[in-house]
């Protein structure tokens, strides 16, 4: 591989991920399903274990050592996340279960107060269900409109369609992914934010996929809301993040009611805590939040420059290698794209591809990837998808290609 990667040694990285030593059906595991959820480095596993073995209690107002220390460690992650995405303040970081909850939180609270019936939300054709269904539910409950921005055949935002969708001035929120979990396309979120803001709309960015591969700066993007999940970022499950601009969060009513999110409670009436606590009802995912902190430290320690360079080479290699296999059809050809590659294969159903690759130890995903309407848009019923993490090697992509050739033989 090229010079840029010299300081980034993937074999060293792989040592940090214990699971990569596993065998599957007697073959070394080739894990090409990181877009669904990434594997966890030792640092994350150890951080979670440490909490449970040495420093655990419920957080906030504990007044005893274990609670103070756990609260400090928990709240330190809020600072870490704020720094990681360059939020203006730690108070703009709300902890959720996952990106799905982050987006639903916005739909339930901001959506039901800042939007009026007749206002519209616009999403693109390539959204994950997590960034489509909540807006359908909002529409049905609250009378807002939902509009779909077309994408090009290459899998990029169609700016003509964007203009049209915004033409009547009713769109008050643009909710859009920063990277498609199917096509691998990045979207020009800075430009989209500017576009939305110029038309008096807010922008919510679904950063689930992008944040794993690129340095994200919510202020540079101009994001009003930004959502992502810990488990795709090499962190634990059960923890996600919603970033929201302070003035937006401050105006929003709470989502769920319970402990932590209150100011004062009487039997008659309650007042709410300030953001971010207003949106964090009940005992938070303490262990997982601390695990997310370790994941962020780990990723920053490697650095997005190195990660992006490595993944870029992988992606180029994969596009070239798979593109060379006769009968394999890669879905999506955006200019700016990352290491998520969907494809179909003549004579082989995506599910058969996945199972047959699995027999060879290779893990890919198959189906609609929680983006069912996009399948129709791209003219397929489903795809197989290989997706890369920082630990993926070119040799694993070669193994995939070899596996596909074998499948071709089987079904020939």
């Amino acid at each position, binding site marked *: 591989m090229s010079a840029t990667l010299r300081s980034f040694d993937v074999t060293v990285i792989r040592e940090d991920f214990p699971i990569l030593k596993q065998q599957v059906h007697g073959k070394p595991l080739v894990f090409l399903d990181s877009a669904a959820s990434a594997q966890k480095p030792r640092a994350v596993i150890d951080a979670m274990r440490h909490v449970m073995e040495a420093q655990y209690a419920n957080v906030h107002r504990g007044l005893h050592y274990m609670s103070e220390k756990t609260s400090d460690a928990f709240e330190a992650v809020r600072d870490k996340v704020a720094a990681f995405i360059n939020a203006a303040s730690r108070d703009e970081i709300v902890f959720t279960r996952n990106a799905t909850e982050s987006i639903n939180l916005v739909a339930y609270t901001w959506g039901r107060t800042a939007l009026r019936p007749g206002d519209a939300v616009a999403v693109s054709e390539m959204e994950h269900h997590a960034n489509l269904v909540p807006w359908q539910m909002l529409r049905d409950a609250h009378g807002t409109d939902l509009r779909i921005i077309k994408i090009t055949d290459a899998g990029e935002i169609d700016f003509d369609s964007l203009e049209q969708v915004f033409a009547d001035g009713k769109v008050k929120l643009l909710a859009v992914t920063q990277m498609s979990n199917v096509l691998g396309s990045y979207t020009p979120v800075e430009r989209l934010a500017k576009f939305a803001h110029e038309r008096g709309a807010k922008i919510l960015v679904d950063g689930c996929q992008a944040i794993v591969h690129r340095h994200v700066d919510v202020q540079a993007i101009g994001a009003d809301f930004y959502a992502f999940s810990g488990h795709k970022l090499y962190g634990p499950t059960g923890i996600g993040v919603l970033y929201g601009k302070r003035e937006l969060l401050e105006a929003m009513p709470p989502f769920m009611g319970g402990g932590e999110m209150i100011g004062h409670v009487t039997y008659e009436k309650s007042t709410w805590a300030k953001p971010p606590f207003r949106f964090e009802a009940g005992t938070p995912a303490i262990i997982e939040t601390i695990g997310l902190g370790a994941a962020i430290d780990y990723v920053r320690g490697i650095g997005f420059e190195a990660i992006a360079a490595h993944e870029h080479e992988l992606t180029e290699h994969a596009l070239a290698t798979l593109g060379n296999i006769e009968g394999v059809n890669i879905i999506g050809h955006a200019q700016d794209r990352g290491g998520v590659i969907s494809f179909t294969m003549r004579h082989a*159903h995506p*599910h058969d591809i996945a199972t047959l690759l699995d027999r060879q130890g290779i893990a890919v995903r198959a*189906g*609609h990837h929680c983006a069912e309407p996009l399948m129709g848009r791209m003219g397929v019923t*489903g795809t197989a998808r290989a997706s890369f993490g920082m630990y993926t090697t070119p040799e694993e992509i070669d193994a995939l290609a070899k596996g596909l050739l074998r499948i071709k033989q089987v079904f020939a």
Partner: protein
Amino acid sequence: MSDPYQALIVERHKHPLHAGRPAQFDAEGEGANPICGDKVHVYLRRAGMDVHYEAQGCAILSASADLMADAVAGKTAEQIAQLSRDFETLLTTGRENPALGGLNALAGLAAYSSRIRCATLPWSALAEALHHV
């Protein structure tokens, strides 16, 4: 653990013996998996329990439908119900059962619980057809 894509499965997927819509039939039934969009339509001629089908989906689905048509031919509705139960047991345990004949080729699916539905879909469609007879 046995291979879920034994030669018989690939063979029947590529060269099915019972595929296609017959000109005449007494009942029909459909099975669809909303998760993957796969579908199978079963046509039943009562005489001799003669089954044909049209499948749109993966190799497991079409091979399973084809092997099912083999297995049920000439059986009574009760025998078919028993076969269907035995087949489900095969799919969940992976333990072959001589009574199942060629259907045993699908034993390897036991390791792929999310694929089991592909194999049972033709049986739900057949159950529907039998119900309508």
